[in-house]
């Protein structure tokens, strides 16, 4: 499987946040925390499950900071990708 690039992952996250929660993409910067846009931990869990479906990946490692940013989400996906390709 080709490795996903950060921009693509960001786009998928932003698209889903817009569709599901009405959060516009211009409100989400790399360092925007999920709490700042109104998401709680269960919503974040849905985001991760949706990312698995949309990106066709399996996230085995779900460790993230308590209040993750978009950058943390992208890093998580990339970390899982690296683990799978090693």
């Amino acid at each position, binding site marked *: 499987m080709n490795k996903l690039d950060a921009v693509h992952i960001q786009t998928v996250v932003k698209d889903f946040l817009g569709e*599901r*929660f*009405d*959060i516009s993409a211009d409100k989400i910067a790399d360092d925007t925390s999920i709490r700042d846009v109104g*998401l709680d931990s*269960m*919503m974040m869990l*849905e985001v991760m*499950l949706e990312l698995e479906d949309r990106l066709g990946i399996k996230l085995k490692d779900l460790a993230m900071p308590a209040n993750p940013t978009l950058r943390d989400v992208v890093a998580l996906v990339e970390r899982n990708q690296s683990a799978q390709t090693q």
Partner: protein
Amino acid sequence: MIRKKHDVVVTGLGVISPIGLNVGELLTSLRQNRSGIRLWESSLLDKQFPAAVIDRDFSAEFSKLELPYLDRCSQIAILAARQAAADGGLQQFAEFGPRAGLFYGSVGGGVTTEHEWVRQFYVERKQQSKPYTIMACMLNAAPAHISIRHQILGPVMTHSSACTSSGSAIGDAGRAIRDGYLDIALAGGAEAALLPTFVALWGGLRALAEADRDDAGRSCRPFAKSRSGLVLGEGAVFLLLESREHAQRRGAACYCALSGYGIASDGYHIGSPKADGQISALREALRDADLAPERIGYVNAHATATPGGDPIEATALRTVFNDVPVSSTKAIHGHLLGAASALELATAILAVNQSLLPATAHLDEIDPACALNHVANTPVAGHRIEHALSFSAGFGGTNVALIVSREDSAKLPGVTCQKS
């Protein structure tokens, strides 16, 4: 007589019902005896059913960040509770700390969410639900959301005793205030279960009314010789209750007093009522209010229009009362299950507040087995009522009677209290 520490008064009403989306609309419908019952259908059911549907999608009232947790039942409960609080001049209860409570009744809770998940499991073979599903369908979801939104920090209780759920919730809230445990409480109930699986459950019981051939709005006929069963409905109704002293301190006027509560059980059968338990609940409420039966000026009966239930209730009412005017307003708003007691108590409140005897619609030929002093077909305006009683009887055998009493200088529907 039961010694009372505090009088309990009703300072706010919130109504989301098939016959009105606020207390003013409810009053208008009661005055006009306007039916909220119509034909309802599902592509999954072979025939149409009469149902008391609220023809509105309330999800537009909430953001997409809120909606994942909110079944329709929670949505209408939140809206009705907000109305009741605002009607009493309140938005937030944090200043009352643990002296503010919330008492709620429902039969099904988030039924739509739960049944949709079951469909996904069996049909789509999904192995896991969405993260929020369990919290959206649990029975206490609605009161939890209301307590979070309004910062109600004392007891947040959920009652489930079938058709008496919101009645016992209101009764217990009133007792907690009367006995000094609380100063103020929101109390009521909600039900939003008009979906094919739930309607088919009731169809299986053979308890549902046949649709009237000429006018679906006439399908629910309590006490009538031609009655054929109950009509399911949906809605949410909340009361703002507080001690008289508390209401006076914050300058809140009241609709009436909540003066009596009786609760008693049949101890008889899971699905068949017994007059003895009903009589006990009625007499307990009279004792609680310290009133002789002849002091009651109006009874809003439970009467669902089932062939078996109505005569038993009529027997109970004849045993306790001599000639009190009786009606069942389910003829126009259907059976709201967990919200039934609350809506019918709201009707009794408007009866004493507005000097109005609500009628039983479609009561052209009274079943002799249901002989009572019926307010048939036409509401009576200008009829002063000092005390009114609302009665409910639930599957499982729980019976609840609540009494409300007229107050001088009472607030009128639609006039919101000044914010404290």
